[in-house]
């Protein structure tokens, strides 16, 4: 045998477990010899025949995989769907959470807003990579390890029943929903006004100290309340329309986003709480923009607003998907 065949055999055997090597080598060697002999009889020259036979057999690594019975995929078709679902759902929750937490910690450590955002993105990326890697590794193990055979069967054969169908959320905006939203907004507006006026703490001279920074009353408080009134009006309009549509969702996103950004901006700039009030109750840091309290407030507002906007957007997308004709914003006639 010339060196090409030897090299081919060596390459193939490398991918095989020890126990199979001797027999496969014997058999493959003789099969190659048979094939070459056949071609020689048909008139080819030895070198060309050998090359043709070996190339006909193909990549020795793949041949070895076939001999060894290894699956040539990481995660097979049966496990792939559970894997994909788990990964996307986990990532959807964990990665934004990581971004927010890292950014929050950065602000608490004294970073500027831009730096905090960048750190947040960096943290999200690192967490994301870890998440994808470990979840994938887990499923590769389940797919291929003998020890995980039972787990594999259970995951792959989970019978689908109609109980698994997602329950459709009502598309129509109900009266109860709208009233609920309006009441919430009313309470928020009322709360802001009350916090500005009501003071149960007094300073040494007996002057009442409201919780909310008094200077807010000139500009920012009216802005916040105005945005909330705008949201209330939007809810009424959407109720009259009957459904959330994409234009309405966009307006909601902008208005709610503006409210959140203003509120967060005030919080992290230390303009939310009355410093006299904070000093009087013994928590001067509460009035500072980079205190843990304000940072937590900002983070919470971000998360809550994001969820609200996302859920409205999702409803609008569902409405649009269900409509055969894009009649956006028009009054529904169903």
């Amino acid at each position: 045998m010339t060196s090409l065949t030897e090299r081919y055999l060596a390459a193939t055997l490398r991918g095989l477990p020890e126990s199979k090597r001797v027999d496969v080598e014997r058999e493959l060697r003789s099969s190659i010899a048979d094939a070459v002999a056949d071609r020689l009889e048909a008139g080819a020259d030895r070198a060309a025949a050998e090359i043709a036979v070996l190339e006909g057999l193909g990549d020795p690594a793949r041949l070895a995989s076939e001999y060894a019975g290894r699956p040539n995929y990481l995660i097979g078709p049966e496990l792939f769907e559970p894997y994909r679902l788990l990964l996307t759902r986990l990532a959807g929750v964990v990665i934004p959470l990581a971004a927010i937490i890292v950014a929050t910690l950065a602000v608490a450590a004294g970073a500027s807003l831009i730096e905090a955002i960048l750190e947040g993105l960096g943290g999200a990326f690192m967490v994301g990579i870890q998440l994808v890697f470990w979840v994938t590794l887990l499923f590769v193990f389940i797919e291929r390890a003998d020890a995980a055979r039972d787990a594999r069967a259970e995951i792959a054969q989970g019978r689908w029943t109609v109980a698994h169908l997602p329950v459709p959320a009502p598309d129509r905006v109900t009266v109860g929903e709208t009233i609920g939203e309006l009441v919430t907004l009313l309470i928020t507006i009322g709360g802001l006004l009350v916090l500005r006026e009501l003071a149960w703490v007094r300073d040494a001279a007996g002057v009442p100290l409201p919780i909310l920074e008094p200077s807010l009353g000139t500009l920012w408080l009216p802005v916040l309340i105005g945005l909330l009134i705008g949201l209330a009006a939007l809810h009424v309009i959407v109720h009259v329309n009957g459904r959330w549509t994409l234009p309405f969702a966009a307006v909601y996103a902008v208005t709610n986003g503006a409210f959140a950004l203003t509120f967060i901006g005030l919080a992290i700039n230390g303009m939310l709480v009355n410093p006299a009030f904070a000093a009087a109750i013994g928590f001067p840091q509460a009035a500072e923009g980079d205190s843990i309290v304000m940072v937590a407030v900002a983070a919470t507002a971000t998360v809550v607003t994001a969820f609200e906007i996302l859920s409205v957007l999702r409803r609008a997308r569902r409405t649009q998907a269900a409509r055969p004709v894009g009649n956006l914003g028009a009054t529904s006639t169903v």
Partner: protein
Amino acid sequence: MNEDELLGAHRQELRRGTVVLACLLALRTPGYGYGLLKTLEGSGIPSDANTIYPLLRRLEERGLLASEWNVEDSRPRKFYRTSDAGSALADQLMRDMTALTASLHILNGGTIE
């Protein structure tokens, strides 16, 4: 995928579904790797060496083929033969195949008996 690729892909599917049965039937007469390739080709079921050789090994592992080394000729060769279990399976698969072909004929516009 263009037409040729489409046809090739579907043909490969058909072949993949029948290659095990073909081997079990052919090896009722003992044969060796390369010889089996020629036999299959001769009867109109061409197959790749890199499919057949590992397949023979897997079928042997599952007890559907029995093997023994033949050292009489100039070259030692591993001969495979369909085991009893393999033969029984082949009979059953052959019955299924015949029924399948009949059904396909009916779907293709033949008459229902």
